[in-house]
Structures are given as structure tokens and as C-alpha cells.
């Protein structure tokens, strides 16, 4: 079997004195989508940033297609994995297309300018998130959900193999939530991308993901297939609120009791 695109070995992550995970092992295979679930402050973002190589782990290591971040260096790492940040800051004015083209940075040599091909990739990314008509708009004038989709488009333009998504559904309305998760699901199925996504909606996780990582916030975690992870008792413990599963044919819908 080939080397998994994203592997964590014996990882220890903590923030502000709080342990997020200890002895953490994870492998996300090509074509696979992993949901990361947990309460506020459980350390989902911290873990995701560690997996992205943005912050050092206390112990253990992360490998992208078999190579550590130290060996890859920031530039090559940026071609292998992309991270959707939770917050988009726009200190200076810029158009939507410019903002998406930033995703092409890792693919350009130092003095190269974005060429026609980069423009085509950026426009295709905008089309994929339904923002084609907004290409010339100022990012300042977008709504929260539109800005989120532009950030997703920039990530798509980056074309990594590993996608790390921190609450990609934030600010999105219902149809775009489904469309965006469907998009990443398709990237995994058809192009062999590996996706790890922080979600707050258990039912969407069940619908679009293969595996689930539950972070309990006290250093405990569990990873396995999504069907096994999602049960009333476990989710109840995860969220600190009783959950109920409602059967619907072959599916189950989870809702807070």
C-alpha cells in the first residue's frame, strides 16, 4: 500500500497548559475524508494547525507523504497541504480574483508572475464555489458567507493533496454547506485528495465523511470509521449533552435530546 498523504506518529499537542492529545496516531489515506468533532476549546484548531506544520508538537511528528515538515521546508509543504483558516483578515483592499490567486504562490518561482494558467485555475476555483460573478469585487464588500467561499476558492487554487479545513461551513447557508462538503468529498473520491475537516454538524459528518476523530478535550481521543463513532452514548459524552439517534431508513439522524 502506498504511503498515506498525512500521518501523525506519537503526537503530543497542548495549548495554554491544556493537553489536547497525547500519543496521538493518525493516518489519512488518499481518497478519505476525516471529520474532527469536539466541543469548543477541545483543541480542534490547535491539532489542525499542528497537522499543518504551523505550530510545533510537544512530541512526535507529522509526515506529509512520508516526509516531515522539517525536511520539506515551508515552500514544498505548501504544495502538499492546504489549510483553510477559521478567520480571514483583510487589512488591505484587494479584489476577489487577487485573493484567490494568492493560492498559486507555492507553484510560482520567486520572480514569476501569475500567468494565464494561474488565472484559469483561479477562475475555475471561483466557479467551483459559485463565486464566478464576483471576480472583480472588493473582498471588503462581501458578506461573511461569500468571503468564506472566496477563502475556500483560494485553497482550491492551491491544489494540495491534503486539505485541512477549519470549520469550512462557518457563515455558509444551507445549500452552500451541502455544496462545499460535496465538493471536498468529490475531490477525495475522484482526485485522491486526503481531507480532514473540523465540523460541528454530526449529521453532515455522517453524510460526507468516512472516518471521525473525536476530541474529548482532556487529552483523550478516538479515531475510527464514522458509523462506529457516531452513537448516542459517545456523542453525548463528547458534547456534554444527551444525544438521540432517530432512524430514517438506512440512516440515523442525531439530535440533541
Amino acid at each position, binding site marked *: 500500500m502506498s504511503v498515506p498523504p498525512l500521518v501523525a506518529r506519537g503526537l503530543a499537542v497542548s495549548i495554554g497548559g491544556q493537553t489536547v492529545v497525547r500519543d496521538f496516531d493518525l493516518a489519512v489515506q488518499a481518497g478519505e475524508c476525516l471529520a474532527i468533532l469536539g466541543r469548543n476549546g477541545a483543541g480542534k484548531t490547535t491539532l489542525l494547525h499542528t497537522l499543518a506544520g*504551523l505550530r510545533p508538537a510537544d512530541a512526535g511528528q507529522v509526515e506529509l507523504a512520508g516526509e516531515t515538515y522539517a525536511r520539506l521546508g*515551508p515552500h514544498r509543504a505548501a504544495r502538499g497541504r492546504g489549510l483553510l483558516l477559521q478567520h480571514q483578515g483583510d487589512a488591505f483592499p484587494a479584489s476577489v480574483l*487577487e485573493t484567490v490567486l*494568492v493560492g498559486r504562490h507555492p507553484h510560482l518561482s520567486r520572480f514569476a508572475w501569475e500567468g494565464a494558467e494561474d488565472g484559469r485555475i483561479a477562475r475555475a476555483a471561483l466557479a467551483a464555489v459559485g463565486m464566478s460573478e464576483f471576480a472583480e469585487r472588493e473582498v*471588503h464588500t462581501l458578506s461573511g458567507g461569500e468571503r468564506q467561499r472566496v477563502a475556500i476558492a483560494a485553497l482550491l487554487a492551491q491544489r494540495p493533496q491534503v486539505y485541512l479545513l477549519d470549520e469550512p461551513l462557518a457563515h455558509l447557508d444551507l445549500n452552500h454547506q451541502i455544496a462545499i462538503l460535496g465538493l471536498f468529498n468529490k475531490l477525495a473520491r475522484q482526485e485522491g485528495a486526503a481531507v480532514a475537516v473540523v465540523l460541528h454538524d454530526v449529521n453532515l459528518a455522517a453524510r460526507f465523511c468516512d472516518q471521525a476523530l473525536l476530541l474529548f478535550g482532556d487529552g483523550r481521543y478516538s479515531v475510527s470509521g464514522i458509523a462506529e463513532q457516531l452513537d448516542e452514548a459517545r456523542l453525548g459524552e463528547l458534547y456534554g449533552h444527551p444525544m438521540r439517534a432517530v432512524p430514517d431508513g438506512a440512516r440515523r439522524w442525531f439530535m440533541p435530546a
Partner: protein
Amino acid sequence: MPSRRRALIVLALLFALALASVCLALAVGSLALPLGAVWEALRGQGDGLAQEVVQGLRLPRALAAFACGGLLALAGALMQVLLRNPLADPYVLGISGGAAVGALAAMLLGVGLNFGIEAMAFLGALSAMLLVFGLAHGDGSWSQARLLLTGVIVAAGCGAAVALMLSVAPEHKLRGMLFWLMGDASHATDPWPPLLVLAGGLVVALFFARDLNLLSRGAQLAATLGASVGRLRLTLYFLASLLTAAAVTSVGSVGFVGLVVPHLVRLAVGNDQRVLLPAAVLAGGALLALADTLARTVVAPQQLPVGVLTALIGVPVFLFLLARAPRVEVS
């Protein structure tokens, strides 16, 4: 899409503007010369007096003013990226405060002539730079807020020291000290140091230009896209500080250029640093060369401090453009 063609057109226009501003500086003054005579004088022909005025007095001063304007605009643009704040200017982190303390101390104590003042100003600027860096970076952390706060506090301390020196200074030294503080190009006789620093600084900045585009969108985003953020910020800090120190050393703390020129250029060409940085150099240089020409001619034979002129020209132009351009958001 940031196209190279548009960038080249804007840069060509600004280059023409910069050239025109220097030509004007050479032609205008108590001895008014037509452009033909200026050209002859530059080539060492024609009237001896014209040659001396153009080559010995006006050219060095115009070039020094141009270089310092370019330095301040470039430093301002870099500082705005470093602090991710369009309101940052080259002086916000206390560099000019340090230079002012050095220069005024030199004047007060009567150390040497021009050279002593310049050396002390540069020394002061470097001290402020290292002090702010040491305090902000002390425990290895490096946040924009901490850097900004440290810089502002050091600048405030320098301001107090300057006020103290002004209040104890003897009457006959006061005018020179005040002129220095407002920015004054009349002592700038050797344009080569600032010009060389400007050329070197621009080359270094352009080397990192696309990384700066990333950094201006946030440190985390820059890191995910492959920039070495820590190293980039260090480079930016020391580069912007050195550029500012070089400018302040030769013409004093001329205000306004470093804040407003990057802003104006951003309105015209957007925030792509590959275009913005060279454009800011040309526009800043042109503005200061022009302002200095006015400073020595408006109420001739009396000379005004050039810093007053930069503000008098810049403020209305800036407000006019701001009112016309709804896309700028100062947040």
C-alpha cells in the same frame, strides 16, 4: 488580475514624474535657468555660474531629497505590511525619535558640524531600532501588538527627551533644532549614501515582494502558503528601520511622505507589493524633490523646512483622493 502591462505603464508614468521633479529642482531658484541651460550645465558646458549652481548646489540637494523621499515611502510601505496596518508609518516604531535625540544632542553639545550631527542621528536611530527590537523580541515571542506598543512607548520616551533638550537649548540653537525636527534638506550635500541605501533596499524588498503580499494577508495564511514568516518579519523590521535611519539622518524627520505615499500608490495600483514598492519609491522621491524645490523658492530668499511643504501638498491631495475613492477602508 495584477497584469505586468498595467504595472509597467504606471511605473513608466511615475518615472517620468520623478524625472520631471528633479529637472524642475535643477531649473528653479534665485537663478532661473531654462532646461537647455540646465542640460548644458550638467554636461559641464556653458555659463560657469550656471554650472556651479546646478552641479554644485542644486543637483546634490535634489538627488538627496529624491533619495530620502524614496526611502521614507519604501520604509512606510514595508512598515504597513509588517504591522498589517495601513496607518503605520516609518516613524511609528521610534526610529525617528531615536535619530532626533541623537541629532539634537549633537547640536546642543556642538559636536562637529554636519557630519557630527548626521553620525549622531544615525547612531540614535540604530539605538532605538535595537532597543525596540530587544524589548519586543525579548522572550522570543514576536507579535504585532507587542512590537507596535514597544515602538510607540520608545517613541514617546524619545519625544520627551527631545522636548527636554529644546527647553534647555540656548536661543541661537533653537531654530536649527526645530528645522531639523520638521525635516530640512538644506544640509543634505552628499546624495550618494541615501541613494545607495535606497537602491539596495529596493532590491532586497523586491526579492521578497510576493512573500510580502502573503504577509499583508496575515501571518498564518502566509505560513500555510510557504512563507518563512519569522525570518520575513525580521528582515522587514531591520530593512524598514535602516531605510528610515538613512533618510532621517540626511534630511531630518520629514513627516507625511512615509504614511501617505504608500497609501496614494495603493489607491492607484492596488496592494501588489511588486508594483507598489517601486511605485512608492518613485512617487515618494518625486514628492520630496518637488516639496524641497518649493521650500527653497516660495518665500525666497528665506527657506522653509521641507517637512512643512510635504504636509501642505500632501494633505489636500490625500483628502481629495480619499473622498473620491470609496474602496479604501481604513480599519
